[in-house]
């Protein structure tokens, strides 16, 4: 995909709220950017921080998490667990030099189709401004740096590359 094209957002949507809201946006024929790729989960509490890291590592420019409003989780409290993990992720991403706008958590209820549209459009604009993340490429560059700094690590890095 050429550089100037659309950013890619990997979206994890809770089945009961945001996924349904996105369906509603469709039924209502709202229009938004074709930048999101939705992975459906039953609850935002299912979202393992690893999913988010993996999405970035595999080339997503942004990750969007959509869950039920506080107090409205279909499974009572999964969204509070999601909130905690989101906080943790924010810190980790900051440490990795990934801009905070690239990870967004939104509570969107089943009736808020327009929020899906707004959030995806806003995020698309933010990501366009930030430019591609290119984490996979950066990872390679970091490996090169590591080898330069610490030639002894070359072997270990090479081994890992084989495994990845």
């Amino acid at each position: 995909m050429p550089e100037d094209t659309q950013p890619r957002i990997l979206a994890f949507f809770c089945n009961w709220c945001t996924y349904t809201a996105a369906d509603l946006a469709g039924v209502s024929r709202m229009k938004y950017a074709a930048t999101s790729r939705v992975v459906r989960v039953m609850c935002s509490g299912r979202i393992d921080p690893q999913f988010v890291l993996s999405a970035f590592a595999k080339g997503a420019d942004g990750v969007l998490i959509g869950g039920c409003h506080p107090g409205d989780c279909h499974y009572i409290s999964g969204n509070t667990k999601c909130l905690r993990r989101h906080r943790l992720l924010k810190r980790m991403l900051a440490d990795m030099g990934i801009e905070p706008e690239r990870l967004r958590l939104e509570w969107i209820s089943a009736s808020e189709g327009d929020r899906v549209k707004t959030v995806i459009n806003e995020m698309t604009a933010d990501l366009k401004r930030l430019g591609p993340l290119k984490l996979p490429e950066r990872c390679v560059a970091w490996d090169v740096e590591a080898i330069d700094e610490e030639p002894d690590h070359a072997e270990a890095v090479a081994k890992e590359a084989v495994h990845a």
Partner: protein
Amino acid sequence: MMTELHQNGQEEVRIGYFVCHCGTNIAAMIDVAAVAEYVSTLPNVVVSKDYRYMCSEAGQDLIVQDIKEHRLNRIVVAACSPLLHERTFRTATQRGGINPFFCHMVNIREHGSWVHEDRAEATEKAKALARGAIGRVKYHKALEKRREPVTPAALVVGGGIAGIQAALTLANTGKKVYLVERDPTIGGHMAKFDKTFPTLDCAACILTPKMSEVYAHPNIVLWTYSEVEGIEGYVGNYQVRVRRKARYIDEELCVGCLDCVDECVFKVGNVDDEFNVGLSKRKPVYMPFPQAVPKLVVIDPVACTHLNGGNCQKSCVDACERAAINFDQTDTIEEIKVGAVIVATGFKTFDPKRKPLYGYGKYPNVYTALEVERLVTSCGPTEGEVVCRDGRTPKKIGIVHCVGSRDHQTNRWCSRVCCMYSMKLAHLLHEHTGAEIYNFYIDIRAPGKGYEEFYERLQEEGNHFIRGRVAEITDIPKVAEEEGMLTIRVEDSLAGFVRRIPVDMVVLSTGLEPHADSQDVRRMFNISCSREGFFLERHPKLAPVSTTTDGVYLAGCCQGPKDIPDTVAQAGAAAAEALTLLDTGYVEMEPSVSVVDPIFCSGCKTCLNLCPYHAITRDDAKGVAVINPVLCKGCGVCVAACPSGAITQNLFEDREIFEEIEEVLAYA
């Protein structure tokens, strides 16, 4: 990982991909042929096709045939939302002879063609999503739906016409029904009306026999003055806690003779009578209205001197020959088991004080429609005589439609019944007083059987219809004929100028709104609300009485404003849905529960406290966690938290999701 060909032992993964045109719904915005072409190049894909309507009989047969012909063992269907047709395609997959959970759906209509405007981009997105699905589906396993027995009883919450109708329908099929009503009597709003539009038949004549039938029905347990406090369990097997508020009356003994009411130390009422919407007073001991069901009195603890700690001679106690009054009564809690729940909690009317320019509460002769319903009924506070609060018999009456409806400052929605009940009241008020009636409307909405005819009849009867939203109601006169009158200022949008119309009495046709506690109620039953706060149906067209929680159904105005005929029809539909569940006798549980692999579990106990349903325990002998599949609802919270990666959620396995992420993003 896409090169991985084998899994489940030696079985080769053979995927069939089917992309739907949905007529032009998808095909107009997504180049489905190009998507099918691309998918055919992906590893393990044996068949890749596009078809006009995948959900049609022919489309499903295509899947069945291809499974057989090409020995397919995985199916991916790219079409509408899985929330709509997942079941359809799983069933087709099963008909083809393989486990239904080998099928996976990709949403390219609601999340694709309907929301995008650039055909190339929408097609790219569909390809990426297809690649993700092809990646994940190879890890799908054969899964079985567990069957659980169903408790053959239903709970109906709310005893308005919706709840009454639903309860009777279910009870008549032989099912046990618990009807829980918050007020001391059933009947809801309809019990307050004199006549009903458009036929003008007497509301009591059609409602009270049904109320008595509820009371006498051997299959209905009626608990009025009661509220549901909590509900646990799952479809087919709910445990419900109901609080029965103390009535201070022994229900077994009270025969509703009202001797206690006559003898109460308060010789006249001391509190607003709820049933007459505050137009009269009632005593602390009262029966809501003569035809109340059950025919029992109730003592209001706030208004009663004794229950307030005061010193009262308790003449009511002496008056009751049956010794039915019991001041020591306390609330009781009933625990019941039901298979299905019908929520029929109705509505409340808009508070016109939110529109201060209409003068409700400020000018005594401004009434709400519900108050006027009570004024025109012969069993109401004035026995059907229409006299205003200031004592005059109105000669000119203005009826203001859409108060708190179709109004961006208050409620945006149309309340659907106000035009019709306004015209009903116009007719009745004219009949009672001979007054000249002015209707102020935005549009007349009369879209029901016999409704437009009723509107014509009203016009023929000489009612005035003035088109325009009323700006203000004032008692400040500008000309002599406005002296002592309420003047309605309105821009007549047909005539094109501002008019001032002096009247004796104003009726505000207030709209229908969700109850103030609707959010609490919906949380308790784990259902959703629309933006307005009315309970949300699972699908606006195809599942109008179901909710996102299996076994919980909706009836009546709690789902949205509607008239009595629609309410009754919906209540019948909700009863039929509940009956289908109860009569089947069992429920099939979704297999998306979680399982701990004891080999990987380190016994760290992280998951134990996370599960909202206490489904996880620790097998102390083996030192590992165990999930009870009956209690697990499949949220996946524990899966995401397990530091050892020992928990797997069926259909949402880590490897399935990681593969989906990786493959979606691998599509350049």
